[in-house]
């Protein structure tokens, strides 16, 4: 668990982060959103002390982050940045092995870990281990960046707009992969973005920042139904909030027993997708199928619409 206590950062007269306190649960994904200049990146960088706080402190599992030298702290915390920052003179395998090498793991353990991560990130080791970053596509470079951050099995992963440089299709894939990774390794993730859709898609809890202050820190649905501040309401988008709310629930969660002659959607689809399917086909209800394609229940238009109200 990460405890942020009264954290502040001043550069001269300018206050970039202003008295922020929050608790981040273990094994969760916390997304920090805000406009540019809101202090969200600075907040993230104060957790691994790439930026030293002017005031307040950060506790990781109850231990003050200032208890050890900053570079040793950072070896235990994964860090992913926009534009990946891969070392251009090192191969993919060497890039991934960076932190294990700093930690003096033995060669066999490093090799095994690199191999495992390449498999997890769908990069065939025979093809990619000895490749250089400039030989990869943007999406592959980004995956190697995340693999490098996860190499030493950190309990905490910090990500600063990690998907900002990717095109929409690859970004959606990268987001899905991240959710898988989080399930697989149980890593606690703190992710900074200015993309609200990304925040709603990934975040167990979302922190909204503006002008250095933390305006609201809640599960995504609460940001929509109970915005703490007009700025939060504006950021989440008045025109889209009903749709966003629908996108937070899956068809499987909302389905009721029964069958339908309408179109079929998978249980993992969101209600927003189910509604879209209904509108497109002009049907009154959809059949919900489980992962094996067996009918699991149905969803009617009324049921979906009821879920879109606060």
């Amino acid at each position: 668990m990460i405890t942020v206590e009264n954290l502040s950062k001043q550069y001269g007269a300018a206050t970039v982060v202003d008295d922020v306190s929050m608790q981040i649960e273990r094994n969760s994904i916390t997304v920090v959103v805000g406009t540019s200049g809101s202090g969200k990146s600075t907040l993230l960088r104060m957790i691994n002390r790439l930026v030293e706080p002017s005031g307040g402190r950060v506790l990781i599992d109850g231990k003050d982050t200032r208890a050890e030298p900053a570079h040793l702290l950072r070896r235990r915390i994964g860090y992913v940045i926009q534009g990946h920052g891969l070392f251009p003179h090192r191969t993919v395998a060497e890039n991934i092995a960076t932190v294990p090498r700093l930690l003096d793991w033995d060669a066999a353990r490093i090799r095994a870990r690199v191999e495992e991560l390449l498999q997890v990130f769908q990069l065939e080791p025979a093809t990619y281990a000895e490749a250089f970053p400039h030989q990869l596509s943007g999406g592959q470079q980004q995956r190697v960046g995340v693999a490098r951050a996860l190499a030493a099995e950190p309990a905490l992963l910090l990500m600063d707009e990690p998907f900002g440089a990717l095109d929409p299709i690859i970004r959606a894939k990268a987001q899905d992969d991240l959710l898988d990774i989080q399930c697989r390794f149980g890593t606690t993730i703190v992710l900074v973005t200015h993309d609200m859709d990304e925040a709603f898609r990934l975040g167990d809890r979302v922190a909204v920042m503006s002008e250095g202050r933390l305006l609201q820190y809640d599960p995504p649905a609460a940001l929509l139904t109970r915005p703490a501040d007009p700025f939060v309401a504006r950021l989440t988008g008045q025109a889209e909030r009903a749709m966003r709310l629908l996108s937070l629930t899956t068809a499987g969660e909302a389905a009721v027993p029964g069958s339908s002659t309408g179109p079929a959607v998978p249980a993992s689809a969101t209600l927003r997708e189910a509604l879209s399917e209904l509108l497109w086909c002009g049907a009154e209800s959809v059949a919900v199928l489980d992962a094996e394609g067996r009918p699991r229940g149905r969803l009617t238009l009324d049921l979906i619409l009821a879920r879109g109200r606060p």
Partner: protein
Amino acid sequence: MSGRHFAALLRIAALALLVAFLVAPQAFAPVFAPLTQYGAPPIYDQGNLLSLALAHLGTVCLAAAASTVVAVGLGILVTRPSGAQFLPLSRTLVNIGQTFPPVAVLAVAVPLVGFGEKPTLIALFAYGLLPIFENTIVGLRTVPAAVLEAASGVGMSARQRLRAVELPLALPLILEGIRLSLVINVGTATIGSTVAAKGLGEVIIAGLLSNNNAFVLQGGLVTALMAVLLYDALAGLERRLCRTVRID
């Protein structure tokens, strides 16, 4: 025949010519004879050309090694946050080394360290600093910000970051600086002979003193061939070393 093959052939021919001339200069006597008057010797006969060429090269390499250590060290220092304040001073000193004519350096150095190789080394050392220093700074400064951030982010100390990330990425430019410095000094080193340093300048000076154009041409040609071949060899070495260092 492709351009690359032609270049390789030219290289081998130039090297063969140089080696042949240094090992058996008398074989070239008919070529240089038309340049002499009154039966003067067509080939330099006051010393062994091969040993002069090797001494020349040795002086240049020693000076370049010293310039490299100092210039790269200074370049690293002034690109650290703690050393940034020394940048203007270092730059001024290094610039003086380049603008102060080597002949003048010799004139100042001889009373201090005496005749021979030492004043030449000092002059070449000072003259060779600038390209290495400036290239080191540019090389270190052009490492992409995201790469530096990542290096710190994964937990490298400042020293580890310099050694594992910054210097390897700056290496192509640093090597280019060393190459420039070396090649400039192969030519410049000929003036060392005015203060009794062993080198190819001896041949040129002997030719000037005895009005023997054959000597002047021999000294000049051997120096020029060495400079060209050295430049070419170092460029090849650079390409080999830096094949993987590509920043996109």
